């Protein structure tokens, strides 16, 4: 454990968060959650809807403060958004008034990179996510999956060590999602990044990760961590293998309980309202 900690590039330590809404009991979204991510690792966090995944994402990214605990990046406690962490959001987040290349160059612009250099770098990252030739287009002229890749390239432009993604492909169709998953794996290898992917998709979690952290529903806490011992690259053969199916089944068995509980609780909440 102590030895592990020395290598951890990102650790979540005893993080709790409650939300207070008027006239309602407080919601304990995260309860003393711990998670350690090693350098170069791909970890998926999976859990039922409303279990606190996005809350965890926002706390790690420094966008909201936690009530207790801390986030440690490379041995240093973070305070607000950290340069080492790049975030990709679940929602469509490209800037409609900027072209693809201007979108990708946005963080470089904030960092004061001269125009010529940032256009060059933007072109590089556009190419990396498979968007070369589309640099001058506006997001409105792109498909949903392409826009999500623009958002990814924009985050990659600062070359963060840790890539944090909150269901980045949730709005996409299955095939596009799988292909983008492969793309992410390639990019991670090329850039030597550590990735933390938040998802509710079991296949995606198994396809991409070294480890899958399963979250429980209320209080949100990491209930179990599963090592995925599958060879890479994980093409169609791996996905259709028995071992892959076995992992999917195991995660589903764990998640099923939590998801069912989440569903029951939201049904009860609905019943209370009426």
């Amino acid at each position, binding site marked *: 454990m102590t030895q592990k900690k020395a290598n951890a590039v990102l650790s979540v330590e005893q993080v709790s968060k409650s939300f207070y809404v008027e006239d309602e009991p407080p919601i304990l979204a995260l309860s003393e959650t711990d998670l350690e991510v090693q350098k170069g690792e791909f970890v998926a966090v999976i859990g039922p809807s409303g279990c606190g995944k996005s809350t965890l994402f*926002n706390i790690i*990214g*420094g*966008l909201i403060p936690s009530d207790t605990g801390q986030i440690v990046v490379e041995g240093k406690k973070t305070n*607000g*958004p950290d*340069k080492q*962490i*790049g*975030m990709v*959001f679940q*929602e*469509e*987040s490209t*800037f*409609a*008034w*900027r072209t693809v290349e201007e979108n990708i160059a*946005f*963080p470089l*612009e*904030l960092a004061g990179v001269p125009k010529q250099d940032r256009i060059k770098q933007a072109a590089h990252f556009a190419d990396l996510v498979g968007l070369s030739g589309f640099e001058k287009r*506006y997001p*409105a002229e792109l498909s949903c999956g392409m826009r999500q890749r623009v*958002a990814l390239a*924009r*985050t990659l432009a*600062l070359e963060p060590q840790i890539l944090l993604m909150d269901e980045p492909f949730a709005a996409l169709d299955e095939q596009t999602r799988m292909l983008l998953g492969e793309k992410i794996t390639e990019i991670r290898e090329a850039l030597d990044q550590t990735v933390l992917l938040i998802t509710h998709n079991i296949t995606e979690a198994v396809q991409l990760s070294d480890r899958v952290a399963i979250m429980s529903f209320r209080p949100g806490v990491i209930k179990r961590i599963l090592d995925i011992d599958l060879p890479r690259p994980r093409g169609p053969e791996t996905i259709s293998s028995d071992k892959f199916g076995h992992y999917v089944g195991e995660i589903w068995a764990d998640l099923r309980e939590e998801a069912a509980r989440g569903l029951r609780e939201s049904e009860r909440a609905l019943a209370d309202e009426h």
Partner: protein
Amino acid sequence: MLTTPIRIRAFSLFAIWLIWEVNAQIAWLVPEVFTPTSQIFAGLAEISVSPVFYEHLFFTIFATGFGFLIAVISGTIIGIALGAFRIFGRAMNPYIAAFASSPKIIFLPVVMSFAGWGTETKVTMAVIGAIFPILLSAYAGMLTINPVHIRVARSFNIKWYDLVRKVYLPSLRHPLLVGFRLGFGAALVSVVLTEAKFGESGLGFLAMQYYGLYAIGKMFSVLVILFALAMIANFLLDRFATRVPH
């Protein structure tokens, strides 16, 4: 190229001219005011060669433009501030609504007691007229900014001024343009009203002077010029709007 909207536009202009002219010729509806259009054209021809007219035109354009510019800058800043600090915005909302919907001419005596009879008063009235539509549309736009854009920006550790320049302002491009248009109209109305009431210069003053002299043709030609001014301003704002990406 004669596209359909242009045809409709030309036709409606012609129809109004026709109705006007027929009315004047048969001396039916208030003939002493609705003079034959030939008189208006004669008035236009006459004032267009008089240097005094250009002086008045300049005064009106200057007061309107200058006041509008001040209102654009301060209205945008105030609207963004109200939207960025929600509690402040919600607190001030009833006051702003009350000011915005009151006729601005009621401020004239107060403004005059500070700024006198000259250009300062006109400019101030233009600002008062234009600032409310601008700040209200900026404020309303702020409430509809996509929250994920702000989160993206914050995740890049954005500075507040970059947030304003690179996220707020471009997000507000459409509501601001609407606000600018309404604001320009309001500035022109305020200036011309002030000139008509108490001024010693400007197109509003000139129109009232002609009216006092029963030079109805010339009075209308001043109104035609005011109308043209508003159209030109709108056209310029439109041109600017098409340069703004969707």
